[in-house]
């Protein structure tokens, strides 16, 4: 096996030094009744070339571009990734290192994460950002736990237009710890219904997602004042950070904690993971934040450099009193997203965000023209809901046969949305792709 460098002579010589007669003898401390009888029953070993063939067969079954036109978003977005990003993150000095506990030989990772923290703070309009959490869903759960630490309350209000799967993750994290979760309904125009907020007491946080799961921009400014009036923190979640290249940042609108998924920024979709949990907050809550932080400092010679800092919040020091149990996070994905943001630049980000918006508006307009209903009137970014005529499931299936995934059926997520679909258009879809979608839908629905 090419990963195992020992020759027979090496093994013999090393055993002699240790004073053991065989490799088996090295395991004499494992009791007999804890041992495996017989060999592992696993396939392989396969050669590198056999592995290539096996994996190619599996990968080929997956419906991906360019063979398929996939108009799916809903928390995972198909964006172009420049060759430079893939190339640079392949530098194994980044990928094969551990968490930068030895700063003298980890300055590359440390500076890259420090720059990432700066990118995120600026993107979201917040004071400070951490070095990443696992994904957008667990970041939301961590944000709510943090809000509880800050406020001393154990009740949170969640918009039902937060990604349904994020809300499930929040329940998993919060319910065993005795939290009360109130879900806020949605309005007919596609935003969170806030009128109930005034009657809830002892609230740690109000959490909304913007753009929300229906693609609509929430009125974050109003949510912020309502939340603050109730003595609660505003937790602003997101699944598509590219939106902040066009729309105002959550921080500018009064969010206290801002968290979400960063996959859009240069990270392959990879069937849902790994993603990147972006997490930012205000300075005054810094010591309640979960996750790692990189800070700037000097070395003995007065040269500027970087270290992990404020680690007393973390599990390896504070153990059961830590602000989170997180250790390994999404370091390489954070660096990847920084490479992507650096490549785009401020001008590129604005341009790309606008292009996503304009393309999605084009499809919206064409669908309307073709006679389909767009049920929610609130402005969207690169996703929106369309309503197809009754019996749309068969239409959807037929489009799949034409290698076209016409968005996400919402029926299984919300009641009363039987014929509604969440469509996503990024820069990867051309006008022709969209025209084809509209034409096929029109033909199939007999409109």
């Amino acid at each position: 096996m090419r990963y195992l460098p020992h020759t027979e002579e090496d093994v013999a010589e090393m055993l002699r030094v240790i004073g053991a007669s065989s490799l088996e003898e090295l395991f004499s401390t494992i009791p007999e009744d804890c041992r495996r009888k017989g060999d592992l029953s696993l396939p392989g070993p396969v050669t590198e070339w056999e592995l290539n063939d096996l994996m190619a067969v599996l990968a080929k079954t997956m419906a991906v571009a360019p063979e398929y036109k996939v108009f799916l978003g809903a928390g995972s977005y198909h964006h172009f990734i420049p060759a430079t990003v893939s190339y640079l993150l392949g530098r194994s000095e980044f990928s094969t290192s551990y968490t930068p506990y030895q700063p003298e030989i980890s300055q590359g990772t440390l500076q890259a994460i420090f720059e990432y923290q700066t990118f995120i703070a600026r993107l979201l309009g917040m004071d400070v950002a951490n070095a990443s959490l696992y994904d957008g869903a667990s970041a939301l759960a961590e944000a709510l736990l943090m809000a509880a630490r800050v406020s001393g309350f154990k009740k949170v209000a969640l918009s039902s237009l937060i990604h349904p799967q994020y809300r499930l993750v929040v329940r998993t994290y919060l319910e065993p710890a005795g939290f009360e979760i109130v879900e806020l309904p949605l309005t007919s125009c596609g935003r969170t219904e806030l009128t109930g907020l005034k009657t809830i007491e002892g609230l740690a946080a109000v959490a909304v997602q913007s753009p929300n799961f229906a693609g609509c921009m929430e009125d974050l400014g109003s949510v912020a004042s309502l939340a603050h009036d109730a003595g609660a923190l505003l937790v602003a979640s997101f699944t598509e950070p590219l939106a902040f290249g066009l729309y105002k940042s959550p921080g500018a609108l009064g969010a206290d904690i801002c968290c979400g998924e960063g996959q859009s920024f240069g990270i392959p979709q990879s069937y849902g993971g790994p993603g990147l949990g972006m997490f930012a907050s205000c300075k005054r809550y810094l010591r309640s934040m979960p996750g790692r932080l990189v800070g700037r400092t000097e070395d003995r010679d007065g040269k500027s450099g970087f270290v992990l800092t404020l680690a007393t919040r973390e599990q390896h020091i504070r153990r059961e009193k830590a602000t989170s149990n997180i250790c390994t996070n999404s370091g390489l994905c954070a660096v990847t997203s920084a490479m992507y943001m650096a490549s785009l630049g401020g001008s590129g980000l604005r341009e790309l965000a606008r292009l996503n918006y304009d393309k999605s508006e084009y499809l919206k307009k064409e669908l309307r023209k073709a006679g389909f209903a767009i049920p929610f009137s609130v402005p969207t970014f690169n996703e929106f809901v369309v309503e197809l005529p009754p019996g749309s499931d068969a239409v959807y299936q037929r489009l799949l046969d034409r290698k076209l995934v016409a968005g996400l059926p919402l029926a299984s997520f919300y009641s009363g949305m039987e014929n509604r679909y969440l469509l996503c258009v990024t820069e990867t879809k051309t006008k022709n792709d969209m025209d084809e979608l509209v034409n096929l839908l029109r033909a199939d629905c007999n409109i």
Partner: protein
Amino acid sequence: MKEISQLATPSDVRYTLDHEWARVEGDIIRIGVTDYAQDRLGDIVFVEAPRMGKKYAKGEECGALESVKAVGEVYAPVGGEIAGVNVTLEGSPGLVNSAPYTDGWIAEVKPVDPTEMDGLMTSEQYIEMLKGFKE
């Protein structure tokens, strides 16, 4: 780390098993951590002070000191209400290291039962306890 003979253990304060000190100043009691405690923790980078006006029982956790890689809890040497906190420590936590019994004090307590002071150790008793650790 300092040897016991190098540690300051002034006799105008009383000591706890958890290395806090307490000094009667009029009708309040000023509290802090000992030279031994600050020496073990190393450079203090943050002081989590008790909350003004909050009441703590004797022995209850009322704050924490953070160094780069450790946290030391502060337990109330006597029960009572927090009547003052040393706000200078917010910007200069290192005072706990450089002057633990003076400028590095942590809080002032309005005691519920001033006789609780009598249950604390004198400097001689505290030094004896520290010697016990060394063995």
